[in-house]
């Protein structure tokens, strides 16, 4: 505030800078709102479109609110829309995704917790090499394993099945789940393990009684991460499933890109929202952990 006296008295300068400040604040909030509209617009369009009739879509414009709200498109998307030759909506595929995601998330999280526990707390020769190999695996483009995996699933007799997809998701999710738990456990002093060893506890006892009770935050992060990954997956789903076992993302794409009949945009949008609901729900309920997983998966990886 050294230059105040030179600009015509302190009070005047203050009120001037106060006005500039206010103007800047208004511009700032305006900019933030415009960006918010940009991010919200597609969701808004999806929802309104899904509530319109096809006639209204053809005559009205993209952003208008529905004149007559109708849930026909939702009903159709859920249980009638055609995915290729089948016309049962996304419902069976939604359940497929559930059946793939739940065991996939549980198994990969459990294995990741054990791996992370070993790598962080039971360092032995080669444990770091193992970790580096796993970390590397997080980054490969999955195209490079698609062909041999298709053959391998055939050899194992689980090609085109839901267990087959669970297996694939567990294998390629391990890198990240191990990374999450390793980075979490590595910050826990190894004196804890030593104290428990002196107390007579063994490998699993220490994991079960001491580390697992400490792990709730990282379990939530990992479960959310894996759930989002598996639920939103398309590449594995489209490559390794067959008619009855496709996940919901594949079904959605089939509905949208099916060339038969009239293009029902409202049904497309309803189906897209249905496919997005579980992960959106998780995001709204546990956004903090969702973001933590994203940043941990990228900054640390």
């Amino acid at each position, binding site marked *: 505030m050294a230059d105040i006296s030179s600009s015509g008295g302190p009070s005047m300068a203050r009120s001037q800078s106060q006005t500039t400040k206010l103007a800047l604040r208004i511009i700032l909030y305006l900019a933030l709102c415009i960006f918010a509209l940009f991010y919200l617009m597609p969701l808004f369009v999806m929802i309104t479109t899904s509530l319109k009739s096809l006639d209204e879509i053809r005559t009205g414009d993209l952003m208008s609110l529905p004149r007559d709200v109708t849930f026909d498109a939702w009903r159709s998307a859920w249980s009638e829309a055609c995915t290729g030759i089948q016309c049962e909506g996304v419902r069976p595929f939604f359940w497929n995704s559930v059946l793939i995601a739940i065991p996939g998330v549980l198994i990969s999280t459990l294995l990741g917790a054990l791996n992370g526990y070993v790598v962080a707390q039971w360092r032995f020769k080669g444990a770091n090499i193992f970790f580096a190999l796993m970390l590397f695996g997080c980054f490969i483009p999955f195209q490079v394993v698609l062909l041999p995996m298709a053959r391998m699933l055939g050899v194992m007799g689980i090609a085109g099945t839901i267990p087959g997809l669970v297996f694939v998701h567990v294998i390629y999710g391990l890198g990240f789940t191990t990374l999450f738990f390793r980075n979490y456990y590595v910050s826990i002093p190894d004196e*804890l393990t*030593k*104290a428990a060893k*002196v*107390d007579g*506890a063994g490998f699993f006892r220490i994991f079960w009684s001491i580390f697992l009770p*400490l792990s709730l935050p990282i379990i939530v992060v990992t479960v959310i991460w894996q759930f989002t990954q598996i639920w939103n997956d398309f590449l594995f789903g489209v490559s390794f499933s067959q008619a009855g076992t496709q996940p919901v993302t594949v079904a959605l794409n089939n509905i949208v890109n099916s060339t038969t009949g009239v293009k029902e945009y409202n049904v497309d949008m309803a189906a897209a929202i249905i496919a997005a609901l579980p992960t959106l729900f998780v995001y709204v309920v546990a956004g903090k952990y969702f973001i933590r997983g994203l940043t941990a998966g990228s900054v640390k990886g």
Partner: protein
Amino acid sequence: MSPILDVKNLYKNYGATAVLHDINVSIEEGDFLVLVGPSGCGKSTLLNCIAGLEPISGGDLFIGGQNMTNVSPKDRDIAMVFQSYALYPTMTVAKNITFGMKVRGVDPATQEAKLKHVAAQLQIEQLLHRKPGQLSGGQRQRVAMGRALVRDPKLFLFDEPLSNLDAKLRVEMRTEIKALHQKLGASMVYVTHDQIEAMTLATKIVVMKGGVIQQIGSPAEIYNRPANLFVADFMGSPAMNLIPAKARRNGNGTKIEIARKDGEPIVLTDTRNTDLPEDVIMGVRPEDIADPARLTSEHAQIAECLIEIVEPAGADTYAVMQLGGKHVTARLHAETSAKAGAQQSLAFDLGKVSYFEPETGQRLN
């Protein structure tokens, strides 16, 4: 009776780097052994080896007469207190203390009785239902002690247990550990980098550096007769003055010449050591350079010195001068007449002087 802990020719390597080199230590029942040294000297590694938390690369380790070299920590009949206390964060204080017994399958009634006993002993009864996160540093320290005490082991191991406490609490807990040791008559191995802790607690001190034992002895032996320059410098505060000097045989004694910044060298006569080489390092504790009136040893010798700095410290006043090219500290009484920049006559107690060989650093007398 066999020693309670006997370490024989112990080696420990990490890959190609040797961390511990030919360690031999043994203690009797009731001993309080302190492993002391600067950080990275291998003292904590040695403790971990004794606990069985680190495999050893060579040698043998006996606890209570039994060879424990390849025995897992839980079967060594030991208990350990860690620097970070290592309390299990999700368990209450009571569960922390009884976890070991629970793992071992001790019946609940015994667990309860022992918990009560230990809690009373350490005055932590009111904390039993809290979690470690709700405790202060001192309280955590007590709980960690309780977890060890409840085991009633042959040997207690402490890994820098006081280093996370603030200065005042540290002194209190130090006294408490000493009292506990005297009351229980237990055998203890205690690691610290704090030489005052070592002096006050130990019945036996092991000074280590670079994975090699420098000296083993009672606190008095270590303090009064350090085995080499490292021990001399490391133990004691303020540190022992280590003054380069020339020794010349002279009749039935030795003349010790110490150079001064300006003027003639100081010459002192040592009548007890007649066998010194020409170049020596003379080690004098600060309290062995004092006001002539207060130092009444028969080996006292008086010399004039130029005082450079005077540092009053309450009970004592430290005077710093330059002798043999080194800063030398004398411990004078509080009301000394010494002034910075003035000459002062000081008495050197040659009865307590140590001599070291400058090249090897080994003790000569």
